């Protein structure tokens, strides 16, 4: 009899392990960047293409970096939440437009000049923000996705919380949901802004 309890116990332990494993989100890869300074960049600003912007321009501020693109379907899903956030909360959101043209997949990049790509990217990004609302203090354009690699971007949208010292405190991969905003981002912002 005793032996059967052993087998049953072992089986239950295995089931528990698998249940936990299957319950985890495989996309939720912990970012090694949390706790590290936000990687520097210097990219053109969407609204003022002759000017550039980088994390160094946000000293002593708590801010959000939101990675988006007009071709990104989940970005559209989270967008109203960001628009609402920007109206209610006094925390600047910086947009990082990620591979606006070449990430789309609908263009033959071998045939497009760098100049044309840039023009089209700015045009598309502006049109999208005009249509869906602009929650961003400003948006910078990462045309080739090089800055995205530095930030470990692999699934747009992604959102980073950066503290006053310029250190990444949180990374959220995938669209922001009201749940994530209320339970994770807002408490963290409140704590960082203390």
């Amino acid at each position, binding site marked *: 009899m005793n032996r059967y309890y*052993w087998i049953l116990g072992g089986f239950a332990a295995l089931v528990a392990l698998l249940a936990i494993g299957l319950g985890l989100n*495989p*996309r939720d*890869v*912990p*970012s*090694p*960047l949390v706790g590290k300074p936000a990687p520097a960049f210097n990219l053109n600003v969407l609204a003022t293409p002759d000017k550039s912007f980088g994390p160094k321009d946000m000293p002593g501020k708590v801010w959000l970096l939101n990675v988006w693109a007009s071709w990104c379907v989940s970005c559209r899903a989270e967008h109203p939440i960001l628009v609402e956030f920007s109206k209610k909360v006094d925390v600047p959101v910086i947009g990082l437009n990620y*591979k606006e043209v*070449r*990430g789309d*997949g609908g263009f033959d990049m*071998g045939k497009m000049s760098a100049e044309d790509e840039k023009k089209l990217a700015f045009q598309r990004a502006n049109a999208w923000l005009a249509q869906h609302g602009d929650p961003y203090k400003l948006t910078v354009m990462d045309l*080739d*996705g090089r800055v*995205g*690699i*530095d*930030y*470990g971007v*692999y*699934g747009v949208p992604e959102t980073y919380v950066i503290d006053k010292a310029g250190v990444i405190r949180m990374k959220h991969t995938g669209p922001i949901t009201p749940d994530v905003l209320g339970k994770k981002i807002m408490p963290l912002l409140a704590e960082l802004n203390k």
Partner: protein
Amino acid sequence: MNVRALIAIVIFASFFGSTAAVASSTTEAALAADPVAEKRLQALSEELRCLVCQNQNIADSNAELAQDLRREIRTMIRDGKSDKEIIDFMVVRYGDFVLYRPPVKGITLLLWGGPLALMLLGLLILVRYLRRRVSRMAEDKPLSADEAGRADALLKELDTR
């Protein structure tokens, strides 16, 4: 549709397919042109997991990000970076998750040690079971004269029924 038309379509399709494949591989080759660098790129990108399609390495994956990362590795090889520097570059950005052979440390202990621990547990249970069986068999003594008599009586009783 007659057979000839079908054959023509098949030939056309295979021709078209192969030229398309040649076109894409030439653009890749144009980026490298250096067989040694290309070999290193191949070896490195087989060690790295693509985060978009998580069960492919970035050598096999055709995802945008994998292409970008291959381009990045090429640039680093051209800049004379060592394999370790390139791997570190990826780990800093994407974490140990990009490595198909993650380092042994606290958080990966279950991953590395789990199978071994399970095997040891299985062996332990097997050994215990076998020992018990041997000792049980040793306890099986032949029947005493008294017991044999009772058994015979019971068997006879059954036969008479």
